[in-house]
């Protein structure tokens, strides 16, 4: 029999709020985390605004020891460690310094790791000074660095790994956690994903001319998913974490249950049928969404709200069309759809996890957060769905089921179905 998987803890490090309370408030108020970036300006990027979480030195010391912080230069690991520890503690779990929890796994995704640390190391190596790297490089630049730090801190003794699938990474990590629980190999899985911040991770996208460059003097206006004046995505970063657990374990511990993860699906368009390394095969996208709904055992019409990928590029209209066709909605019964990227930018490998935390919070607090900067909804989208389906103000709603999807370079797709847990 299929095991029921619930979410018992959340952690979030977002450009518009670090910690659950700050993030929830930011979502409800539609507060933007997009700011002008001095570094990007100095380096003459086309896009000079970005979403970066604000973390004080004092806060770093609450999560990492002074020794761990010596020579530490990895934003991705920092964000992931903060989000991961917060989710663990939010689930009501206690760190035991002497014991290993063999039934707890960690699948924490990342696109890169320690890219700033890697840069430091490259300079030293090229100066023929490899001997001066010290012990802090290897552990920070390995992609699984974030999972390695977390398992040591939290005492997780099951499978501890890092997945990577571009901007689908976060959604994939959550589904991999779900599968691990289904297979009986874990009772709890800390899932989520993180992304480094800064010019070395964002440069490649700036060079591809896919980033917003028309709003450098109005940072909060720059990220405009589904809007006619959308002009590319705003680079972002951060981390989101979700503690997945069997329903039995959650009930036994008396844990708070935020929502149930009914299931989902991941697939790849194989760069066929219009898909490429950077563009989606629409057939694959629709197939992914449909299969997720089928795996979750729900009817599409039961979906209360959709949290899209919606990056604020030309592809937004196509994404809305894919949702509409895959779920067989009409113009009039299309549910509210929103994009977190309007508030925090595109968190790349972190986006799926950040957005899943936001999706689960919408279930817990029964609301739909607003799409910022979408007063001028794109005509192609307005031709398909009613403008009321793209709320620009926070909307209180009876949120029972959220469908959340992420799409990534490599033509990869992921879709998750979250449902309110009915406490009986």
């Amino acid at each position: 029999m299929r095991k029921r998987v619930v979410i018992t803890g959340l952690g979030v490090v977002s450009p518009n709020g670090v910690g659950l309370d700050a993030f929830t408030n930011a979502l409800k108020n539609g507060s933007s985390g997009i700011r002008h970036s001095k570094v990007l300006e100095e380096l003459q990027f086309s896009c000079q605004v970005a979403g970066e979480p604000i973390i004080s030195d004092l806060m770093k010391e609450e999560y990492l020891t002074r020794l761990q912080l010596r020579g530490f230069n990895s934003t991705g690991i920092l964000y992931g460690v903060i989000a991961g520890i917060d989710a663990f503690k939010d689930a009501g779990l206690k760190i035991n310094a002497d014991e290993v929890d063999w039934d707890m796994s960690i699948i924490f995704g990342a696109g890169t790791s320690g890219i700033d640390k890697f840069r430091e190391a490259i300079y030293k190596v090229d100066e023929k000074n490899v001997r001066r790297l010290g012990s802090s490089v290897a552990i920070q630049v390995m992609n699984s660095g974030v999972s390695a730090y977390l398992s040591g801190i939290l005492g997780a003794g099951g499978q501890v790994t890092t997945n990577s699938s571009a901007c689908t990474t976060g959604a994939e990590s959550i589904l991999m956690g779900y599968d691990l629980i289904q297979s009986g190999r874990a009772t709890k899985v800390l899932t989520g994903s993180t992304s480094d911040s800064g010019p070395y991770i964002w440069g490649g996208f700036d060079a591809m001319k896919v980033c917003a460059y028309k709003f450098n003097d109005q940072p909060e206006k720059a990220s405009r998913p589904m809007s006619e004046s959308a002009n590319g995505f705003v680079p972002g970063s951060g981390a989101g974490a979700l503690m997945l657990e069997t329903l039995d374990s959650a009930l036994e511990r008396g844990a708070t249950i935020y929502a149930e993860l009914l299931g989902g699906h991941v697939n790849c368009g194989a760069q066929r049928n219009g898909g490429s390394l950077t563009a989606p095969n629409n057939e694959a996208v629709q197939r992914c969404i449909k299969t997720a709904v089928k795996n979750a055992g729900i009817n599409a019409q039961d979906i209360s709200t959709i949290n899209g990928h919606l990056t604020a590029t030309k592809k937004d209209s196509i994404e809305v069309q894919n949702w509409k066709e895959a779920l067989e909605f009409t113009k009039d019964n299309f549910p509210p759809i929103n994009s977190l990227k309007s508030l925090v930018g595109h968190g790349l490998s972190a986006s799926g996890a950040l957005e899943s935390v936001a999706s689960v919070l919408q279930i817990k607090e029964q609301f739909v957060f607003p799409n910022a900067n979408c007063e001028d909804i794109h005509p192609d989208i307005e031709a398909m769905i009613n403008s009321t389906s793209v709320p620009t103000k926070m909307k209180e709603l009876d949120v029972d089921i959220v469908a959340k999807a992420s799409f990534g370079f490599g033509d990869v797709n992921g879709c998750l179905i979250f449902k309110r847990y009915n406490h009986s």
Partner: protein
Amino acid sequence: MSDTNLLEKLKTIVEPYVQNKEAFSTISEETDFINDLKINSANLIDVALDVEDEFDIMIENDDMDKMLTVKSSLEVIEQKLAEK
């Protein structure tokens, strides 16, 4: 440089890596970095690099391997300083 001075400088260098603060409070020439101070073996490299910075010396691989105790570390430092 006097031995006490050297020891004090080495203590300052080692301190951030120490996991057993109690053993550190009674540090002596006989103190072993890994067994007594519970320094992570990977961090011994960092201790050696910090020593290089502090004394402006270069420690070759063979000498680094010797730096497992306070006594052997002081010997390496003294020898390198004498060669300067």
